[in-house]
């Protein structure tokens, strides 16, 4: 049996991944500046990188980093206090001792609260969405700038810039390091959920790059979601989002074909779906609903995803329930794309004529002009109704609108088929999210 000593650099990476968020959060409470807190944490990391290869990884590496960072923070606060005193002396307004914070308590108590404050500040609406994403992955996900740049296929300098600017913005605006309360909480929480779902989606159907999915990024988002669910166990929409991500992630290995091509939901091999994640998703959804959050936008989307997850075959899908869930979703977040999704679900539940009626109502919708799925769905419904000539025109129109080469080929194929073939009873492409 070989007993190998751990490579200290790898160990440090791993410890950083586990500890960095708590470290930064604790420090941010002491120094009241997220940027500074991160710098102090980084300094402690550098110290570890210098020390550990020689001394070996300490028994409790997390505590070691905490102590190293804390000492730096104490030095800094002392220097500041000294500076303040000098200023006070100059102003001849000496008013007794400057309060020394109980540093141990500051770090060790209320770790959860500190983390939560860090979440809210990283996702602060004052920052651009890109900055929120970068800062969240950096401060809470423990990702390096390089890892973030690789994940989003942007140059490392761009990510570094975003982070630097974001920290400066937060400092200049004097954004308080606190958990928002009352009505403010709901608005700020929705920004946090948005950031996490944005990260997830970038991994789930990459908007850039050669790969259709980047599962790593989905895992990062899921981890953030699960952490948030631990921090805010009473917030139904947090569980709704976690449920949505768990269920969607359960299909990751089924939605990519052998040569990397996308496989649509209803064509997927359901045996490849990850039953563990489905189970976790259904549990999270149940929790969201029990907390009274069944009508939350994430919980509703998760409920749609759950309908697919529960169907053993595509044919067993409960389309009328999906249609009614979309209807409920429309009431909380009206959107023509959700209308289109509902139309598809209705067509699957009550036949193509009923679906077409709803789709036709969307034809004048401005925001859907140029959206290839509208003519694609319409073409499919027309084809099912035997109106092949009209269907062909729609498929061709859809083909001219899509940016994806594989999709264009598929649509042109269907257009050509309309001239010769009778339509196959197949749901419209893009109907349900794969």
């Amino acid at each position: 049996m070989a007993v190998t000593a751990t490579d200290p650099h790898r160990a440090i990476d791993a410890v950083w991944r586990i500890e960095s968020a708590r470290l930064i959060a604790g420090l941010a409470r002491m120094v009241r500046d997220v940027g500074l807190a991160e710098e102090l944490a980084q300094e402690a990391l550098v110290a570890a990188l210098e020390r550990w290869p020689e001394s070996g990884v300490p028994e409790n590496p997390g505590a070691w980093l905490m102590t190293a960072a804390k000492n730096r923070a104490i030095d800094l606060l002392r220097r500041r206090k000294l500076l303040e005193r000098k200023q006070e002396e100059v102003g001849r307004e000496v008013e007794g001792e400057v309060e020394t914070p109980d540093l141990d308590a500051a770090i060790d108590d209320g770790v959860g609260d500190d983390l939560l404050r860090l979440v809210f500040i990283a996702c602060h609406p004052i920052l651009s969405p890109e900055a929120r994403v970068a800062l969240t992955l950096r401060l809470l996900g423990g990702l390096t700038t390089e890892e973030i740049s690789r994940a989003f296929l942007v140059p490392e300098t761009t990510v570094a810039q975003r982070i630097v600017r974001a920290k400066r913005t937060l400092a200049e605006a004097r954004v308080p390091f606190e958990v928002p309360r009352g009505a403010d909480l709901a608005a700020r929480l929705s920004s946090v959920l948005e950031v996490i779902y944005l990260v997830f989606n970038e991994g789930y159907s990459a908007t850039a790059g050669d790969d259709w999915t980047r599962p790593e990024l989905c895992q990062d988002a899921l981890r953030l979601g699960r952490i948030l669910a631990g921090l805010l166990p009473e917030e139904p929409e947090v569980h709704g989002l976690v449920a949505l991500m768990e269920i969607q992630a359960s299909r990751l290995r089924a939605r990519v074909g052998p040569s990397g091509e996308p496989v649509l939901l209803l064509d997927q091999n359901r045996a490849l779906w990850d039953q563990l994640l489905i189970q976790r998703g259904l549990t999270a959804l149940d929790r969201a609903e029990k907390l009274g959050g069944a009508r939350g936008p994430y919980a509703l989307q998760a409920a749609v995803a759950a309908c697919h997850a529960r169907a053993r075959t595509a044919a067993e899908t409960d389309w009328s329930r999906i249609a009614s869930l979309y209807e409920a979703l429309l009431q909380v977040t009206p959107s023509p794309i959700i209308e289109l999704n509902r139309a598809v679900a209705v067509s699957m539940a009550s036949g193509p004529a009923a679906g077409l009626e709803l789709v036709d109502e969307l034809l004048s919708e401005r925001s859907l002009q140029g959206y290839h799925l509208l003519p694609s769905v319409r073409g499919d419904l027309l084809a099912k109704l035997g109106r092949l000539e009209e269907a062909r025109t729609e498929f061709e129109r859809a083909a001219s609108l899509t940016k994806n080469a594989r999709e264009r080929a598929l649509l042109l194929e269907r257009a050509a088929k309309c001239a010769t073939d009778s339509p196959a009873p197949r749901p419209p492409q893009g109907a349900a999210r794969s």
Partner: protein
Amino acid sequence: MRFMVIVKANKDSEAGVLPDQKILAEMGKFNEELVKAGVMLAGEGLQPSSKGARVRFQGSKRTVIDGPFAETKELVAGFWLWQVKSKQEAIEWLKRAPFDEGTEVEIRQVFETADFAPVDPTGELRKKEEELRRTIESKRR
């Protein structure tokens, strides 16, 4: 990536002796930490092997052997399934587990189907496709 963390059996676990309050509380705290960090996907403790069985396959013959099984140290007493970024992260988490002296816990990486084409785990199909392509191309010349 996912890791299975496999806790081996010992005399007590095989005798069905439940851990004392203190250890249970410590383990509970550790589990809570794992959940809060978004690391734990699943985890279960297993009953002693006396409540289990084995099925041995020989040709078309299946022989059922009831527990308990003798080789205590080789038996599994419990497991976790963790989602982490690296093996090292799994190791760092495991180091924090409140096990006592003599315990040895194994970490094993789970195959990720997402790493390769799902219908083609060995790459056999892809290889054949490439060969076919080469053959076609050589015939074209």
